[in-house]
């Protein structure tokens, strides 16, 4: 079926912890995080705001905000090379070329004083030795590819002259300019209205199949997950609590948190899943409970949950759960 080359994941995150400074001490916002993204695969990272999904993507890009944040430990292997250990100059060569990122806020993510055409062609100019005319021609082709109406006429326009949906298309054009092996999409559709959202998702799916790109897709919208993901990783308080193929997680979620997330019927037009059913809030970064981090909110909680931290246990091939009650260590489901 496949050769050895195709088996190496595009992205392999191993035991990653990303820390932030709060009142003089470093606290992990993400800890013990491990996952792979295979070639031409879309992995969705799902969870409430503040669970560490965006931080994860930023650390892959080497864009963890400094000096208040840092990668504490672990490896981020992108095409076999450890991004976390790279110098800034090496990272700059990778960013925008082999890996690219789309951000959540199309309204503020484009530079207001540079023309849209230039911003799209910039990555080409930076990474490829081509002249300005060739870069512009390619940028125009990209704008047409992401279906900007009358792209030629609008090439020299500025971001404020575009709508939110159009700006997000421009962001996508920028990100795919150099056909990256990995695209990190941080809630790319959250700020858009429903129809535009569906269009943008469709566009991303087309691009992925056309270019054989891998995607790390961050969202808290489960409708979007169903539409685009191959596999799903559910994050809570900086840890993966459940990871499984998309069909499996929709049909049989194991972790109580995943269950709660999925209790509300996922719909693409819902901005946020209601978590009222579980009550409570994600604990702040500097006041994490010692045992299972979800324990204080968990309906299936047992006294042992709060004593020790839980391990991620494989309950089925490709399906792992971090829960001492539903998936105790040593147990193995068929």
């Amino acid at each position, binding site marked *: 079926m496949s050769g050895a080359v195709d088996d190496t994941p595009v992205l392999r995150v191993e035991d990653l912890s990303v820390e932030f400074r709060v009142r003089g001490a470093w606290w992990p916002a993400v800890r013990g995080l491990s996952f792979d993204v295979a070639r031409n695969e879309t992995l969705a990272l799902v969870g409430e705001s503040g669970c560490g999904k965006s931080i994860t993507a930023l650390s892959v*890009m080497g*864009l963890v905000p400094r000096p208040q944040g840092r990668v504490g430990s672990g490896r981020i292997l992108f095409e076999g090379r450890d991004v976390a250990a790279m110098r*800034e*100059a090496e*990272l*700059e*060569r*990778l*960013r*925008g*070329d082999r890996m*690219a*990122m789309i*951000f959540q*806020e199309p309204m*503020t*993510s*484009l*530079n*207001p*004083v*540079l*023309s849209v055409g230039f911003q799209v062609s*910039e*990555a080409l100019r*930076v*990474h490829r030795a081509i002249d300005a005319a060739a870069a512009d021609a390619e940028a125009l082709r990209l704008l047409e590819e992401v279906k900007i109406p009358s792209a030629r006429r609008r090439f020299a326009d*500025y971001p*404020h*002259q575009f709508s939110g949906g159009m700006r997000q298309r421009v*962001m996508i054009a*920028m*990100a795919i300019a150099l056909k990256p092996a990995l695209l990190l999409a941080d809630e790319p559709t959250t700020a858009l209205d429903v129809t535009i959202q569906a269009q943008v998702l469709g566009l991303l799916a087309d691009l992925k199949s056309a270019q054989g790109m891998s995607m790390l897709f961050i969202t808290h919208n489960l409708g979007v997950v169903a539409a685009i993901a191959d596999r799903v990783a559910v994050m809570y308080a900086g840890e993966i609590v459940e990871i499984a193929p998309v069909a499996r997680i929709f049909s049989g979620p194991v972790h109580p948190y995943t269950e709660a997330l999925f209790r509300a019927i996922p719909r693409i037009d819902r901005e946020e899943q209601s978590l009222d059913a579980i009550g409570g809030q994600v604990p702040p970064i500097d006041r994490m409970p010692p045992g299972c981090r979800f324990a204080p909110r968990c309906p299936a909680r047992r006294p042992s949950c709060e004593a020790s931290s839980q391990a991620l246990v494989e309950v089925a091939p490709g399906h792992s759960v971090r829960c001492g009650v539903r998936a105790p260590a040593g147990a193995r489901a068929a």
Partner: protein
Amino acid sequence: MIWYVAKRLLAAMPTLVAVLTVVFVIVRIIPGDPALTVLGDQATPQALAALREKLGIDKPLLAQYFDFITAALTGDLGRSLVSGRPVIQEVVAVLPHTLDLTISSLVLGTALGVPLGVWAALRRNRLADYVIRIVSLVGLSFPVFVSGIFLLMVFSLHYRLFPVIGTSNLADLGDRTWKLVLPTITLGLVMVAYITRVTRSAMLQVLSEDYVRTARAKGVPARLVIRRHALRNALIPVVTVVGLYLGINIGNSVLTEIVFNRPGLGKVIVTALNQRDYAMLQGLMVIYCFLIVVTNLLTDLAYGLIDPRVKQA
């Protein structure tokens, strides 16, 4: 762009009238008799009345206002009471000196202030940042006549590096530049201090913007991110402040010209003051209003160049 300039120019006219009106009201609202100020309390009633008539301040207030505005808009600023020459002539004769000084200090302020501000922002809360912040605060606490005198004492009197007298031959470019050095530094220091501080805070603001992160995510090298993506946006508030302090600069040039004994608007003002040349003073007032409106206009145009959003509006 041409449309934008034309629109701005048109919009500047009412502003000029408004500025003149405000100045007129201020001058007239505060009690006091200019004729008495000019001639002193020993003057005869006849002399006072004659002067009032000559200055046009014996007419009703509304007529005075009308005369003042028409005269200003037609460029007729009256004649000096002392030399009898038109005010505008006297001003035009010395204007190049003042413009030399103002523009060169602005260039100095921008050339030093912007990089220093960027540097401080990039080294936020490190030693360089603290030093730049304290030094710039000292810099803008110097009244220019004090810094001018200090510079004069050190570089002209003690080390004899620069001439004490600033009168220069406009046709001789070398001489003109040479004599501009110390006055420019004097006036420029304040500019450097202000521009450094504004650039620093604008950069800090801009560096945390989403589009800077986008640029980095594209793999744009750090230096280009700062120059192309951050600085261009940070310059927008800097332009505002430069525009505002260009006015202050015009005011400070008066002091600099006195300290360095340079010809210029400042010297004309002081001479008019000493000679109690009221007509001259009133004409100069209009000139300053005009300069301030022009400064504001230039600031607006600079916005148009930097910020594409401005032209649209």
